[in-house]
């Protein structure tokens, strides 16, 4: 047997074992052999997810100093801090695949990696804070719960932590909206306006329709994804309509109605052209979001360098003392 043949046989054996792990719903762990495509897909998806958490701090962070009460301020601060934490859990999971967090950050600020298109929309009033919690975090939960069973162990474990915390995010948002709906006419108007603006971008969070999502089948075969984009979108709509009714707001879709035969709500197609425009960098806040992240990264470099220099000096003194 030539060396080439031996290599191919080894590779096939490893591939079979990988497939058996996924098929038996076991987890793939960092030092296991895995197909290059699996690793690349995970790095792209986890990095994109981490970037979304980090960029996602901005629309809400802008309201921290303008929160209407100390209670709302403390809640918002805790939520934004959670988003930072979620980003770090995910960067930590990505690093188990052999990439460096600093490289991923460089790719984000160089716009070579993407984040969720939803964060390219502005938060115009404090009602937006409530709607982001209710709809955006609600959609994120629907997306993320199945990821707790993702075939890649570190990603699944990060998602379990994240999902536990995400529930607080959604409930604080809904409670905020209930409070505003029981307030003045102006407050109710702000809530309705924010719902109108965030509804369609929230539906777009599940990604393009199944027919336009070429990677879905492979990701499902690898156990990275458990449901298609359209299945998750439907689930989100079904969950959200009764919540909107309880809140007393109308979702901005004339095509929204219960289909007794399907036992699901029918709804209209989002404007996919807008989705692709925002993804391509032409959303209302794309430039602002990335530039803000870049400024924070570059502005913080002296702190990272000073801390590293201090640690090196302390280590040097430690060695001298021995």
């Amino acid at each position, binding site marked *: 047997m030539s060396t080439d043949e031996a290599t191919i046989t080894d590779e096939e054996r490893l591939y079979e074992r990988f497939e058996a792990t996924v098929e038996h719903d076991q987890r793939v762990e960092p030092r296991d052999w895995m197909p290059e495509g699996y690793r690349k897909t995970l790095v792209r998806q986890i990095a994109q997810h981490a970037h979304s958490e980090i960029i996602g701090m901005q629309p809400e962070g802008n309201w921290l100093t303008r929160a209407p009460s100390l209670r709302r301020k403390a809640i918002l601060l805790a939520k934004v*801090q959670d988003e930072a934490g979620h980003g*770090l859990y995910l960067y930590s999971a990505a690093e188990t695949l*052999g990439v460096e967090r*600093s490289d991923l950050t460089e790719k984000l600020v160089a716009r070579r990696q993407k984040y969720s298109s939803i964060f390219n929309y502005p938060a115009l009033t404090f009602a937006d804070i409530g709607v982001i919690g209710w709809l955006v975090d609600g959609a994120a939960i629907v997306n993320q719960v199945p990821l707790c069973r993702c075939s890649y162990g570190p990603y699944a474990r990060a998602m379990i932590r994240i999902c536990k915390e995400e529930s607080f995010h959604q409930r604080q948002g809904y409670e905020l909206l209930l409070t505003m709906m029981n307030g003045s006419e102006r407050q109710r108007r702000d809530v309705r306006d924010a719902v109108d603006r965030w509804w369609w971008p929230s539906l777009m969070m599940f990604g393009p329709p199944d027919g336009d999502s070429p990677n879905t089948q492979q990701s499902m075969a690898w156990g990275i994804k458990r449901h298609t984009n359209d299945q998750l979108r439907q689930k989100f709509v079904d969950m959200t309509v009764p919540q909107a009714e309880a809140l007393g707001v109308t979702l901005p879709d004339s095509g929204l109605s219960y289909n007794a035969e399907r036992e699901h709500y029918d709804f209209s197609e989002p404007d996919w052209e807008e989705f692709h425009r925002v993804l391509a960098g032409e959303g209302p806040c794309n430039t602002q979001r990335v530039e803000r992240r870049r400024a924070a990264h570059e502005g913080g470099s002296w702190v990272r360098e000073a801390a590293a220099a201090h640690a*090196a000096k302390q*280590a040097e003194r430690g060695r001298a003392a021995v």
Partner: protein
Amino acid sequence: MSTPSGTGETGRDATGGVERPSTAWPLFEVFVRGKRGLNHVHVGSLHAADEEMALHNARNLYTRRNEGVSIWVVRAADITASSPDEKDPFFAPNGDKVYRHPTFYEIPDDVPHI
């Protein structure tokens, strides 16, 4: 051991790869004791300039909701790990020692409490 050393969960070789610039913060693995009576369990990793900062960052990152009463941090590069490959000969010596398990021994059904 076929893969003598490595960096635990990080999947990177301790010696291989590109050398970091001196300003980069090293990677630490974090272990949390959830409550008294339980072992420390690995929860993830983070970057920090030194051990003390790693502990503070670990508290802020992994125990924001009372998830722990004690934290260990250790530099990822200092972890020596076996290969998780199930076919690895590292775990083979246990394979043929069934007599280490209680089920190996046949005891008559009417003998109590054993």
